[in-house]
């Protein structure tokens, strides 16, 4: 049993890219470990050099990423205006966030965004990628066109779409709708249509990246499987259903959880398009965090903001863990 799986692994290894730790080194590990380890052996073994080369990365991540994360955790138990010394307030920040009537609105709105983005945004790139992989000529051109929205800086894209979403009859989208005889839509100017409008732009902006990933995954599907299916008399739909999708399973599961985490943190679109309006119809959790820290109170309620951030991070962490637990069996055979 173990023998065959090791043999399989060896057969799979690409000879052009030998793994950094060849099997021989792994076998030698136990003997090396038995020797006495001192700081000197560590230095002779190149430990200091490794550290020196790691240092820029460690410093940059430490100062600009891990440090602020640790500071945010501390701040969530404090009241501070960043100048006078902070005071410890225990769980007060968490209690106040949980008592905020806007929290419910923000959570529901974020869920609404996530569900809409899932319905429109998740299948679309898969369909596009499958269609594009079937194209025989000009594949590169289509890939480039699909990826183009990702190249546009997100803020620029949103500001452009804000112009397109002009709700007067001579707005760009309303003019196009007019050609089809559809009356002008209020887009961002109505509580009912604001959120779907944000989702349409977000889907447009994100689809390109996903399409490229799916295209790459599709190339990895062994063509023999299609040939075999064809011999068995499968048409295009059966090939997609029985060959393509099962082969993409692993990547689909990863993309799904990435999308869920991404949509739970949606900020740019509501912040730039609507500022959370009209009447809080597009207030999301992250926008609420922003408001706590920078908008609602001039002192900046960093305590409440970091408390809600922490809760969101823990929730997403748990969700991801649960998701991988549940899908572990399906995604890996």
């Amino acid at each position, binding site marked *: 049993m173990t023998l065959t799986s090791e043999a399989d692994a060896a057969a799979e290894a690409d000879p052009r890219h030998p793994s950094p730790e060849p099997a021989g080194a792994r076998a030698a590990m136990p003997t090396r470990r038995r020797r006495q380890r001192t700081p000197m052996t560590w230095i002779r073994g190149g430990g200091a*050099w490794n550290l*020196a*080369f790691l240092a*820029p990365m460690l*410093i940059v991540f430490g100062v600009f990423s891990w440090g602020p994360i640790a500071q945010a955790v501390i701040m969530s138990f404090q009241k501070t*205006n*960043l*100048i*006078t010394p902070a005071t410890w307030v225990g769980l007060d920040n968490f209690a106040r966030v949980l008592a905020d*009537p806007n929290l419910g609105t923000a959570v529901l709105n974020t869920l609404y965004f996530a569900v809409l983005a899932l319905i429109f945004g998740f299948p679309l790139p898969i369909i596009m990628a499958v269609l594009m992989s079937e194209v025989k000529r000009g594949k590169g051109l289509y890939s480039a066109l699909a990826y183009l929205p990702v190249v546009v800086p997100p803020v620029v894209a949103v500001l452009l779409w804000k112009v397109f979403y*002009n*709700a*007067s*009859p001579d*707005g760009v989208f309303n003019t196009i709708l007019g050609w089809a005889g559809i009356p*002008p839509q*209020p887009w*961002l*100017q*109505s*509580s009912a249509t604001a959120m779907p409008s944000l989702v349409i732009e977000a889907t447009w902006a994100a689809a390109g990246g996903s399409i490229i990933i799916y295209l790459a995954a599709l190339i990895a599907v062994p063509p023999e499987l299609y040939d075999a299916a064809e011999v068995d008399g499968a048409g295009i739909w059966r090939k997609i259903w029985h060959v393509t999708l099962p082969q993409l399973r692993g990547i689909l599961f990863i993309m799904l959880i990435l999308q869920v985490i991404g949509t739970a943190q949606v900020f740019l679109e509501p912040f730039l398009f*609507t*500022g959370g*309006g*009209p*009447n*809080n*119809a597009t207030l999301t959790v992250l926008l609420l965090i922003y*408001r706590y820290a*920078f*908008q*609602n*109170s*001039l*002192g*900046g309620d960093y305590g409440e903001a970091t408390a809600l951030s922490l809760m969101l991070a823990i929730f997403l962490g748990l969700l991801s863990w649960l998701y991988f637990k549940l899908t572990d069996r399906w995604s890996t055979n």
Partner: protein
Amino acid sequence: MKSSRRIAIAGLAALAMAGSLAACSQAAEDDGKLELRVATFPPGADQAAYDAFAEQEKQFEEANPDIDIVGLEYEWTAPTFAAQLAGGSLPDVFTVPFTDSKTLLENDQLMDVTDEVKELGYADKFNPIILEEVTGSDGAIYGFPRQAYANGLHYNRDLFEQAGLDPDSPPTTWEEVREAAKTIAEKTGKAGYATMTSGNTGGWQLSVQAVSRGATLQEDNGDGTYTSTIDNDATKAALEFLHDLRWEDDSMGATFDLDWGSINQEFAAGNIGMYTTGSDVYTALVRDFGMAPDNYGLTVIPLEDGGKVLGGGDIAVMPPTIDDATKAAAVKWIDWYYMQKLLNEDAAVADAKALSESDQAVGTPLLPVLDQETYLESQEWIKDYVNVPLDQMTGFTEGIFEQTPAGEIKGQTQPIYALMDNLVQAVLTDQNADVDALLAQVDVDAQALLDE
């Protein structure tokens, strides 16, 4: 060989690291002068404004050779303020609207200037209502009120003419505003009337409109506590007015997410017939938004049922973190740049001359920061330099001193404006918005903020 190359690479990496860190800290200038970093204009001001500033900078530095003025493009905004204050990147002198000054000074985020204000002899000269805006509950003074305005009704004379209305007799009641808006919308296809709705400005302008109909939005209990009274007939009338213009007359256009910047931009571009905002906006409309002066008209806001006109203004302040030498220089600058022109004829004339020579607005209608007499006198001094079309603003300049001024709500000003934003957004974006229920809810939420 190999190791020396390694050393070279590691050395380079370390150098790059150190270099980038060093670039973060500013090189200190050392020519014996004190560097004073002062706010100039909001982003977007034209070159002429900077030319005028450079001229004034030169005059100040000649009079104060030991101070080096460094102008910074800056506009006070809540989202960046606390972080900039903590990071030490705020200008040493900047201005803050009255709306925010109370919260900032109660949060210990402004410099105490009580002694300096008294020493310069301003303490007794300020209009007491305005001095109140910069006085903390500890009795200390935290800034120099430098400019005050009343809200007015601004209108586009060109759109009035296109709609067949007389731009020299603007509306004087809210009902006339509604009729004019409807006419403009029907005849020109533009928004006849518009109001701000986002970033707390919706709440600010709803206050203006409600107070003009006799509303009191907050009771000061005199013991540091406040009672919210947003839910009243006048606020309701203001909201229903907006609802009717939007849904019955369809005279407010199709954009309902405007804030101070975007409404000015739309107005300057000729897409809005009328809106309410501070009387001092002319300067920004022309300087920052490219409005054609001929199209501009200003009159007073209609007052009904004992209504008052909501005022505002801004104060020149310093961050609480600067050292004594910088503070002394900052006070000199504030006195010279902002205050002297209010009460000293030579300073007023020099200021007006520098501005008018660079084609900057001189004579925009304001309210007196000091007493009314000094203000009217100062207008006489600079008469020859006034270049704003005052004859298009007579509705305001002749009517404003007849109106009773009112101040903004004092407790939790911005957070409550944020709540009131939702009221305005609701009536403009939801035809079936339940005004009574919304008002009752906002009153409860506002009281909760006040009780915190």
